[in-house]
């Protein structure tokens, strides 16, 4: 690993100053489960590593019925899935948080890191997109909000500009009669990277017999995590039925434009985007109707 210096930043402005000064040669460290591997393997380089775990804004984890959920970018996964509010209101996020790596990875890894690594297969991203997550981004001069589905510009590349860092993810409060689920397909049952995945949020009407709307996003089937509005649109206003679910799953499959690599073939991924969407929808509907 190349040599670098290390700064444990205590304030947002301290971190932003270093990022402004060093540009892309400064890298933010929170859980390090991607960054340390990338530096070790020479896939990223850094002159300075800025540890952002000590910055209060990046450590907040708060929920209110009005504001929804705020997750600081440096909050590790184990804090998220051990949080009662998240469990109650965002079960789809729990699906994802408990799938990333193993327990020892979850002790360190963060959603902020998962988002900033910007892998097309990042497990938290499809469900965060489905939850209408907004990225709160700060630099020395400005703070701005970017909808998560606009945050990714290519494999491993985000909309973050030099000098900017991700501060937090904001999820709106869940809509009544909604349900969410994240499902991924992996050959191993754990410790694996999604071959294809689907994150969905469905909103049902009061009788829970008809879709009001849905948001569906896919993982590992395109250069970036893929928001598929047309799959959600296929459900809006439809009765909850096999036909509607089938149509949405087919729309998702049609949107997928995967590649072949060591984790799966293009045909397999295309096929799995259909299967995962269908199964995630069934799970989300079950949850909207009060099931686990």
């Amino acid at each position, binding site marked *: 690993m190349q040599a670098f210096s290390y700064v444990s930043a205590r304030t947002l402005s301290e971190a932003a100053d270093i990022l402004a000064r060093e540009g892309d040669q400064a890298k933010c460290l929170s859980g390090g489960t991607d960054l340390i591997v990338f530096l070790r393997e020479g896939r990223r380089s850094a002159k300075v590593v800025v540890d952002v775990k000590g910055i209060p804004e990046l450590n907040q984890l708060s929920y209110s019925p009005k504001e929804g959920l705020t997750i600081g970018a440096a909050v590790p996964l184990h804090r998220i899935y051990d949080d009662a509010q998240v469990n109650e209101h965002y079960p789809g996020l729990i699906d994802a948080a408990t799938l990333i790596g193993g327990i020892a990875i979850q002790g360190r890894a963060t959603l902020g890191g998962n988002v900033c690594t910007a892998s097309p297969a990042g497990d938290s991203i499809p469900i965060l997109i489905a939850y209408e997550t907004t990225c709160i981004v700060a630099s020395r001069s400005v703070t701005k909000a970017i909808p998560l589905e606009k945050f990714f510009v290519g494999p491993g590349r985000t909309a973050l500009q030099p000098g900017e860092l991700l501060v937090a993810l904001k999820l709106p409060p869940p809509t009544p009669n909604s349900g969410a689920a994240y499902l991924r397909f992996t050959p191993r049952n754990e410790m694996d990277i999604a*071959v294809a995945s689907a994150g969905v949020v469905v909103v049902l009407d009061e009788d829970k017999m008809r879709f009001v709307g849905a948001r569906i996003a896919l993982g590992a089937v395109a250069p970036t995590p893929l928001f598929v509005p047309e799959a959600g649109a296929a459900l809006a206003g439809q009765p909850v039925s096999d036909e509607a679910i089938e149509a949405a799953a087919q729309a998702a499959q049609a949107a997928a434009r995967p590649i072949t690599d*060591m984790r799966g073939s293009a045909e397999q991924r295309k096929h799995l985007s259909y299967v995962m969407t269908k199964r995630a929808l069934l799970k989300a509907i079950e949850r909207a109707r009060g099931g686990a």
Partner: protein
Amino acid sequence: MTTVEVEKTEARTNGKHFKVIGQRVIRPDGVDKVTGRAQYGADVMLQGLLYGKVLRSPHAHARILSIDTSAAEKLPGVKAVITGKDLKPGEDKVAKSGESSVNYSYLSQNVLAQDKVLYHGHPVAAVAATSIHIAEEALALIKVEYEVLPPVLNALDAMKDDAPILLPNLRTRELGEVVSDKPTNVASHEQYARGDLAAGFAEADVIVEREFHTNTVHQGYIEPQNGTALWNADGQITVWTSTQGAWDQRRDLSEILHVPLSQIRVIPMEIGGGFGGKFPVYLEPLAALLSLKSGHRPVKMWMQRDEVLKATGPTSASVIRVKMGARKDGKITAAQAWMAYEAGAFPGSPVSAGMGVIFAPYKLDNVQIDGYDVVVNKPAAKAYRAPGGTNAAFAGETVIDELAEKLGMDPIEFRRINAAKEGDRRADGPVYGRIGFIETLDAIEKHPHYNAPLPEPSAPYMKVGRGVACGFWYNWDGKSSASAVVNPDGTVSYLEGSTDIGGTRASLAMMLAETLGIHYEDVKPMVGDTQTVGYNDGTGGSRTTYGSGMAAYHLGKEIIKEMKQRAAVLWEVPADDIDVEGDVYSYGDKRITFKELCAKLDETGGPMSVSVSLDTKGAIPALATHVVDVEVDTETGKVNILRYTAAQDVGRAIHPSYVEGQIHGGVAQGIGWALNEEYYYDEDGHLMNASLLDYRMPTALDLPMIEAVIVEVPNPNHPFGVKGVGEVPIVPPAAAIANAIYRAVGVRMTVLPMNPRNVLKALGKI
């Protein structure tokens, strides 16, 4: 756990029940291993230690045009840099190494490339520096100019007439002789044949013919290869390393470094798994050369995981064609196999072992097996648990299952009709001794698992099925030495030379204690090195409990002989007239225990030590029958293992827990091989999944409990009835799972791994 005792034989000592053998004692090295104190190869720390790293080829096939190490040498902290020029070429001669053989010219080129690189990850240079990070920085400063050549990445392509040639001097050994001077990638063609194949097929009512493809897989030990070497100013070389065979290493180092054996001491450290893959040298010769070049400072090296996967011996990918015929009454009338195994960069695939395995469980009158050893641009294949056996059995046992199905016979009944017994001759020549194959079939047939209804599918898109398969492994005996010091407190310090890779200090000490009639705790075992104990073949080939166990027994007998002498001195009677019963020595009404006699060593002749060296014979093959229930997700192609039961003839279980452990571990590796493990290369020959994340070995969440059924048909050639147990458990799983998948979804899988992608393809879903 179930133990089926099939028969009692003379192998039981004097017809008595064992006191120690069969107990589940605590292993003597256990406390060190659960507290983190045990010293593995990478834990070695020495004064003035330097750290070494290897520069590896980014290409699968290329000519090295030039290497410029000058910038690396100038980096502060760098103490030595070596390239292929620093290594005198190895001699073109072959020796046995562990379960396979080794040609020193090739081994030397594999350790450090000379003029060509033959696989992605092939070593081209090495550096020693004061820190691992500096060594790594130095690697980046070495400039290598390559002429990239087209790679050849599978056996069938490599066998084509116009294939790129890896080794310009290689000529095919055609049934043992070189008959053509044409450059080739086919290192050898061997054949086993008996009877009249055409007549056999003519007699058949049913014939099944299929072609199988299996991919490269790795042993996957959790401890990466390592090696620390000190080439001292007096010319003595000491190597500390994780090895299955310290004496093999000493010989290989002697040949590669061109240094006499007597100048090399190999100290085997605790070893973090091997499965056959830790016989060959990789880093040790480089560490020694770096030590010499850095002014006799010790150099420690260890691999990163991607280096382990890219450059240490995996086992062969293969193409296997099988044709078998059987009569309506279930008798197999003819069996034919064509097997091409990838050797990787240098000749030496386990194809001949695979040829022996493929039909071994069955008595066959008409049989022909052809095998080809083919070089390709992948790392040199090395032994992996029952080398070549799993792929062979995958092909053979799938076809057996299909024959049984076509004949409408139960798969176990069909196998019983054809099962080999003592006295039957195998296709590869040898006649079976007292094997226990039929006993394993009986054990599974009677087992609750085989008789339970299939589990209910967990979802509408899930299908469940049950499959059976059998397996054979040769087992090895080989050479073992041991020595002992008898202590005045009644204990025995026991020095043996078999690397303890899975509890053999315990099983060997148990056999010595049993022989001496003393408590297990009174035997203090220790693994020696090449300078402290006599020669030992390595821990491999399922030989340790057999061969080194036999040495323990004979060591015990030698101690008893000495102790009788001491009692004779004490009582002033002839030693030959002294009786020994357990730990009691007696003459008339005089009695003295082993422990009491030990207290009198000083007055009966002084200190006592004995040693033995044996070339053991008489190993008998292991056979096994496995049954597995699987659940296939027909929408994703994923296969879950629901239940697994493995019955195996172990001869005699010395320490049943570690026998079960061998079965569990072999089955788990077999499941990994069957379902997900594979080398994934891009078309240029780059290994794309060189990490434990993407190589996908099973985790705890991917496996069920595995029931090991111990069948004991004692080996009459061994004092305690032992047969090797370690390897055969990996042989049947892939076939058993393929057969279960067929019963679940009606599709015959002919590729390994049967990963979701391949299962979906077979189901016609993609």
